[in-house]
């Protein structure tokens, strides 16, 4: 283990280390803590410039209720859910099929296809913007949930395919071969043998891609515009313009927007990190 386990050091070092941990955490997350504090302040506090001191009253329920009552935040949240969940399912499904093909079949163009999926995943969004916008308009999807779902499924398929391929490569070939000898059809092999084995990877991938799609801002600006379809990222930044002085409400909105991916991350931390590094540490 590197660095040396701290238990082998003197007692003083140990105590110092353990004290320094919470201090660094507080410093590291200070900007966020400030936002959370502000989201429960009263408007009097804000108007009097009491931003960093102790709140004179705790308006937790009032502020969060107000965000949902007097802004479209509830609708934005719903939109984000309606966009993110189908998009995650679509991307994971398509990439599991494609990842299996790239992992377990030797064919001409295999490496080229893998390179295309990986490379496409890194391109700047701007090179796609105008044609994707035109395509969305001509499909009659502009300003609908489907506009964003379709794009996210297509784009995330790049990363997801690499991820699934790297996972499936590690599955034993003998299992597939013996099924083939028994005359099981290729699709049944996928469905009954491969799919049950990749379930843990699917969870890891889904958590990760959920965060990517939920946090998207660029495409939310480019492909939709009305409040009835706008996801929470674009919604929040438009609120920022409208509610300029009510920092307590904007902060509450920011906390609401950040909460779903954060909750998912803490609930499935191990999956999340496994996902991030399986896609990454190879190579």
């Amino acid at each position, binding site marked *: *283990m*590197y*660095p040396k*386990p*701290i238990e082998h050091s003197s007692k003083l070092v140990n105590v110092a280390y*353990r004290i320094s*941990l919470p201090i660094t*955490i507080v410093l*590291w997350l200070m*900007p*966020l803590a*400030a*936002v959370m504090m502000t989201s429960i302040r009263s408007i009097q506090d804000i108007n009097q410039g009491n931003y*960093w001191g102790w709140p004179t009253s705790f308006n937790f329920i009032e502020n969060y209720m107000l965000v949902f009552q007097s802004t479209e935040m509830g609708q934005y949240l719903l939109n984000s859910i309606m966009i993110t969940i189908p998009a995650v399912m679509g991307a994971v499904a398509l990439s599991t*099929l494609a990842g299996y*093909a790239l992992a377990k*079949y030797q064919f001409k163009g*295999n490496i080229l*296809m*893998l*390179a*295309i999926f*990986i490379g496409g995943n*890194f*391109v*700047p*969004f*701007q*090179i796609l*913007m*105008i*044609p*994707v916008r035109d395509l969305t308009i001509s499909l009659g999807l502009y300003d609908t949930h489907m506009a964003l779902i379709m794009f996210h*499924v*297509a784009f995330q*398929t790049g990363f997801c395919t690499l991820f699934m391929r790297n996972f499936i490569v590690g599955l034993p070939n003998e299992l597939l071969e*013996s099924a083939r000898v028994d*005359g*099981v059809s*290729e*699709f*049944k092999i996928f469905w*009954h043998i491969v799919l*049950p084995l990749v379930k843990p990877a699917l969870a890891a991938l889904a958590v990760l891609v959920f965060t990517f799609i*939920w946090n998207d*801002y660029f495409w939310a*600006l*480019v492909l939709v515009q009305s409040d009835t379809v706008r996801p*929470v990222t674009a919604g929040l930044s438009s609120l*920022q313009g409208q509610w300029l002085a009510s*920092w307590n409400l904007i902060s509450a909105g*920011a906390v609401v927007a*950040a909460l779903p*991916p954060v909750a998912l*991350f803490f609930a499935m931390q191990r999956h999340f990190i496994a996902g*991030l*590094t399986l896609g*990454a*540490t190879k*190579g």
Partner: protein
Amino acid sequence: MSEQSSVAYETKSLPVTPKKLGSRMPKHLVPWVFMAPALLLFALYVLYPIVSSFILSFYSWDGLGDKTWIGFDNYIQLFDSETFWTALTNNVIWMVLFMLAPPIGLGIALFLNQKVRGIRLVKALFFFPFVISQVVIGLVFSWFYDPNLGLLNSILDLFGFNTIALLSSEEYVTYGIIAAGLWPQIAYCMILYLTGLNNLSPDQIEAARLDRAKGFKMLRHIILPQLAPATFIAVVVTVIGALRSFDLVATMTAGGPWGSSTVLAYMMYEESIFNYRMGYGAAVAVVLFLIMAVYIAYFLVRMLRSEK
């Protein structure tokens, strides 16, 4: 496992008819059938748009009317435009300063790679900024920098420095945004290094310790070489992240004041969506794409070499 063997058993007992998928299909087509849905969508939404943007960059187009072929005019205008050079310079500053993320991430990873109580939670909290939307991060930092109520100025004031309106200063604004961008990027690099540190070979470290290798020498000659894969990924995602920067610029300053904090990604968006200059915007996108293509190609070559 029992599930699979029972499946295999069942299908074995069935008469294998040539009508079944996979037995009827020529063998070399099978992988393409599995890939077809993903490939089709990917081609439509990623591959075709890249080509299409290249072509569009040679046209003048307002997004509605007819397109007019103008050859290299968009590029000539672009290289003459001050905004373009500001954006490009800012992108270079982003890239240079973003390179702080891997070493700082490594530093934090080394600091946290211990087995004390609660360390899992501490690691998770350090990783936290990466999970949050950049819109929220932009909002948090705009506020942190606010000249009247921001914490930054309270701190500066406390130590007797002059306060500054960071986001309205042409000189400092880009650095302010980059600092906000570094926050989640450091978190990402940290997690890559933590995973790398987990996979170190204990034998080599023990051997080095027996040889009395210590401190910085140990890190440099024994640890860093083993962390090379993590470093490679960290550097690549950091460069790509710096070149992709859009969300923070859009939410914190919209490229201002007076275009001083714009980057290529934001300039492209502004020209096409606000100024209706689609061809010109496409030219900006092509330049950005070509810069990134260098890194993408480098990444692909290294990655595919390790596959073989």
